[in-house]
Structures are given as C-alpha cells and as structure tokens.
C-alpha cells in the first residue's frame, strides 16, 4: 500500500478510471467542477473520453449512449444539475443501464432528490454516501460493480467537503475485472430478427405494442431484491446507549467525533450512520436503535432523512431533529453547524433532557 496526498475530487476521478470508467460527460458547477477537471485531464491517457457537455441534459444523454455499448460510463453534477438530468435518470433506470452518478451536492438538502427516485415513475437509484475520501474511493469501485451487477444506476452522494478536502489515501491500481455484457450494442445481431434494443418503454423487437404492467412489475421485483441485499450501515456504542445520534455523509464525521469523545467521558450515547441512503438500512437501524429512549437526527437540511429514520423505528422511540439548515454565504452547505463544539453543545443538551426523563 502506498499513500499519497490528494484532493477528494482527484481521488474520485482516479478511482473511477481505475475501476474501468472510460466515458465521462459533465457540465461545470461548484463543487462538482473539480471532478470534471480531473476526468478531462486523466481520461484521454486511459484511452477514454471526457466531454465537457453543453448542458446537464446532454451530459447524461451522452453517458446513456456510452453505457449502451457496454462501456463503464459516468456523469455527475450538484443537486441543481441533477434536477435537469432526472428525466434521463428515470428512463436510464427503466432501460436497466449501469450508470454511475457523482452527486457533489451543495450540502445535505438533496436527500429526497437522491433517495426518492427524483424523476417520473417508480424507480430507485442505489445511493452510496461516503463519510470521507477513504470510503469514497471504496464507494467508487463498489458503485461500478453494483451498477453492473444490478443493471441499475448508482449514485455517490458527496459534497463540497468531500470534493475539496485533501487527505492521504491509497490509490493503488486494483486491476478490476468487469463482467461480460451480452446486452451491449455492437451490431452483431443486426438482421437476425433479434437485434438488441436498449429500451426504457418495455418495447421488444418483433413484438407490437408494450405491456407496461408486466415491465414495471419486473423492475419493482428487482428493486425489492436490491433493497434486501445492499443495505449498509455503520454503528458505534449502540448496545447500551440511552440516547443515539444518527447522521449521514461528511456531517457524520463531525458527529462521530463528538460521540466518541462523549463515550470516553462516560456518556451512554450511541451513533448510527446509514452508508446506503437507498436502500435505507431499515432493519439494522431499528436493531441498533433498540434500547435508546430517543434518536437525535443530525442532518443539515429542513428534515429529510428523519422520515426514513421514523419509518425504520416504527414508533420504538421518538426521532428528533437536532440539525437544521446551515450554509455558508455561497450556499455550498459548509455552514456554522459543521463545528464539533456546536454539535457537542446540541447533543449534550438533548442527552441531558433524555437522561433526566429516564431518571424521573
């Protein structure tokens, strides 16, 4: 293992290329821009193509085409740009193409957008949410593997902190093996009556019309299997915790630090971090939260993940929002609440209340 000191955006781009990504298209927008910079710089040397697309609509369309040929391909943006891409995300999901999306969000306000499909129709993307660059590198390899395995888009939910922080990380090449893709377009079946059709409407060659119900139900069956198979969670100190704090993404790094400090000082406090935002690690969350009298949900938005927390707890304990909207003046989501002293104040206050209730 060798370590080098790199910026998060560079680590993401290099891991993607090492994972076999050979097509990338994007439109510059902070804090996604640096991922695009590194892709543009490094992709040609790997024999790939990076296109500085004329809009997010075109970027995702180009990735759609590249994926159809069986190439590993990705796009990305921030939540605002992903809003423009949602129409294509929705169709690409129904076309069962293994798209990887780098969502370098402006903070945590796009949880709903990421986890609720985002576009039209009944669908989900697998959403991996790294806490730091080390985990983000693992998630990049995992994202391409999961996308191929399930033939479903996978999103990496990063942010300004992840993209712009420098860390000493291991980027040794992993010689990734890729699965064969018999569905990929190459023209070899042209004229046989069985030419391939990457189709999001459920149309098949030689058959008139479509059968939407059968097609959509088949996809729902797949989502249910993914939901059972791909939940990931990180928990600490939950066994005897009377109060447990949950957080996600880079904000969880601050919360985890505070919880570890308080544990050292004897607080009976626990920590839960969903690593996959979809599928939400529902059962593991419920199990880890068991015994806690209250769950504090620290997220930097108006209250989004708290809905999934409540759906997981099913009334076992109240979930109370202890985060909130917090941003810098540019709206990039690096706000005053990303401060361990302030987080500690908040957690101590809630812990004291829960402990007092318990004593009484």
């Amino acid at each position: 293992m060798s370590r080098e000191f790199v910026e998060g955006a560079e680590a993401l781009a290099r891991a993607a290329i090492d994972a076999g990504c050979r097509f990338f298209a994007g439109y510059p927008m902070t804090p996604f821009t640096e991922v695009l910079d590194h892709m543009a710089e490094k992709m040609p040397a790997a024999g790939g193509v990076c296109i500085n697309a004329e809009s997010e609509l075109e970027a995702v369309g180009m990735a759609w085409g590249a994926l159809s040929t069986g190439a590993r391909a990705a796009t990305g943006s921030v939540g605002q740009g992903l809003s423009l891409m949602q129409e294509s995300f929705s169709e690409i999901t129904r076309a069962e193409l293994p798209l990887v999306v780098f969502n370098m969000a402006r903070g945590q306000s796009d949880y709903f957008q990421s986890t609720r499909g985002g576009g039209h129709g009944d669908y989900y993307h697998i959403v991996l949410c790294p806490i730091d660059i080390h985990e983000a590198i693992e998630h990049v390899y995992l994202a391409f593997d999961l996308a191929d395995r399930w033939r479903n888009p996978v999103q990496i939910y990063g942010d300004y902190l992840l993209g712009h922080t420098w860390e000493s990380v291991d980027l040794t090449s992993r010689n990734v093996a890729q699965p064969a893709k018999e569905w990929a377009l190459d023209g070899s079946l042209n004229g046989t009556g069985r030419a391939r059709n990457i189709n999001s409407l459920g149309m098949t060659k030689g058959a008139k019309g479509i059968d939407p119900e059968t097609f959509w139900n088949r996809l729902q069956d797949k989502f249910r299997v993914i939901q059972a198979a791909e939940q990931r969670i990180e928990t600490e100190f939950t066994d005897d915790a009377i109060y447990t704090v949950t957080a996600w993404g880079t904000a969880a790094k601050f919360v985890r630090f505070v919880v570890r400090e308080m544990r050292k000082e004897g607080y009976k406090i626990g920590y839960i971090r969903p690593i996959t935002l979809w599928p939400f690690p529902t059962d593991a969350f419920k199990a880890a939260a068991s015994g806690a009298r209250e769950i504090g949900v620290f997220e930097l938005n108006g209250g989004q993940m708290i809905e999934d927390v409540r759906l997981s707890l099913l009334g076992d304990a109240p979930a109370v929002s202890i985060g909130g909207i917090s941003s810098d003046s540019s709206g990039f989501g690096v706000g005053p609440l990303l401060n361990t002293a302030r987080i500690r104040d908040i957690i101590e206050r809630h812990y004291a209340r829960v402990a007092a209730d318990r004593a009484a």
Partner: protein
Amino acid sequence: MIVIDTTKPPQEPAKQKWDTRPDLLIEGDHDLCPGCGEPIALRCMLEVIEEMGLSKDAIGAVGIGCYTALTSLLDTDMVQCLHGRAPSVATGIKRMRPQSLVYTMQGDGDMVNEGLQEIIHSAARGENITCLLLNNGVFGETGGHMTATTVIGQRTKNTLEGRDAAYHGHPISMTDLLAPLGGVGYVARSTVTTAKDIQRTRRYFKKAFETQRTGKGLSFIEVLTMCPTGWFLPVQEGPDYLNKTMSPVFQIGEFKVDGKIVTPEGQV
C-alpha cells in the same frame, strides 16, 4: 400496343417472384396510418445500409414520435431515447464505438422543438454520426399539433385558423441552421412523394453514410414526409399537399457536401 389476353389463365401462376424486403426489416405490420411517409423514408435508409454492406455495423438512437412504433420492426441494434435527446445518446455510442455506423431518427417535434440544442451542439462538435429528421410539420402522434416546422398558414389543432407568423412565430429550417456549422460534413433534404424523390432520398442516405464512414463530420438528412392524418386530409392528397405547402418552404436538395456549402439550384 400489347393487348393481354385475359380469356385464358397466364402461363405462370401469379406469385411473388422475390422478397424485396430489406434484411434489416423484420416482417410484420406496423401501427402507422395509411399514407404516412415515415415507413418509406425508413425503408430507404435500411436498403442503403444493406447495399453499402454495413448491416452489421448500424446502431440507432431513436427518438419519440410515430416512428417509434416502427422500431420493433427495425432490426438494427438501437437505443430508445427520450424526446429530443437522440444526438447526445448517439454521441456516446459513437465515441465508444467509432467503428459502428451510428444513426439517429427523430421527427420535427423531437429534433426541432424539444431537442434543437442537442442537434446543434452535436453538429458543432463534429460528431461522426448521421442524423435523420423526418419532417411532416406536425406532431403526428399527439393528433396534429403545431411544431417548429409547421409552415405559415398550415392548420393544426393549435393553429386552427392556420399558423400566423405574428401570433405563432416562424418555422425553422434545419438545413439553414446546420450547413454553416464547422463540424458538419453533409446536409441534404429530400422527400418521398414520388418514385424520383424516393430515389433521391436513397442517394442522399448513401452520401450521408459515406460522410460518416470517411470521418467528415456530422451528416444530416431531412426527409419531408406525408402526414395526411395530422394534416386532416384524405390519404391520397398527402403527397400533393406536401409538394404544394412544405416543399416551397423547405427547399429540396443538397446544402453541404464533403464539408463544403453548395446550393440546391440546378441539382437533380
């Protein structure tokens, strides 16, 4: 004058002598209306692909319109694209498979309304793809509504008294937009109203695909197609209406060949 003796049966029984169907067309019926020009244009393209020996190289990126119903009979690998987005999807395909013959198929609503930016940028980037516009001046699939190529005076469901430039704006000619762009190798417009026009369409397809094969940039071919249903006309009046109303606005001929701007005047 030869007079056929119909008092006796013919020496040979009447039968189909050979199958004229292109290899890339799957046998079956389609859902398009009588008198529609789109199947003719599509057949021209498939015949040319086959004649050029490129049947195993073709990959399509197909938009959303009436012609989408034809794709189940279209025996080339293809991607079903969103309305307007086919040139970007084709870009991704071609960049990953430069050896393939990549074509797009869009209608006027798809390319000129919803997807104008995509075709313009793909052209300016000089993508080595062939983009087909099936232009009938209406949204046929929705039942005959105005598109960006509806000609002045044309009645549609949302221009009931005819398209009025002052109220509904002016039609857009794609050949005018694309021919001047640096990345474009070939630009032509044809129609399928007569046998001569069908032959011309085939000729243009061949030149468009040759442009792609020799890496001379984006090739664009627009085919004016009849839509008697969307024009609210009897089927047999479609070709005549097209020739009288659309062809004067959308000039037939080649506008760019081998990357050089040409004028359609005097072309056959």
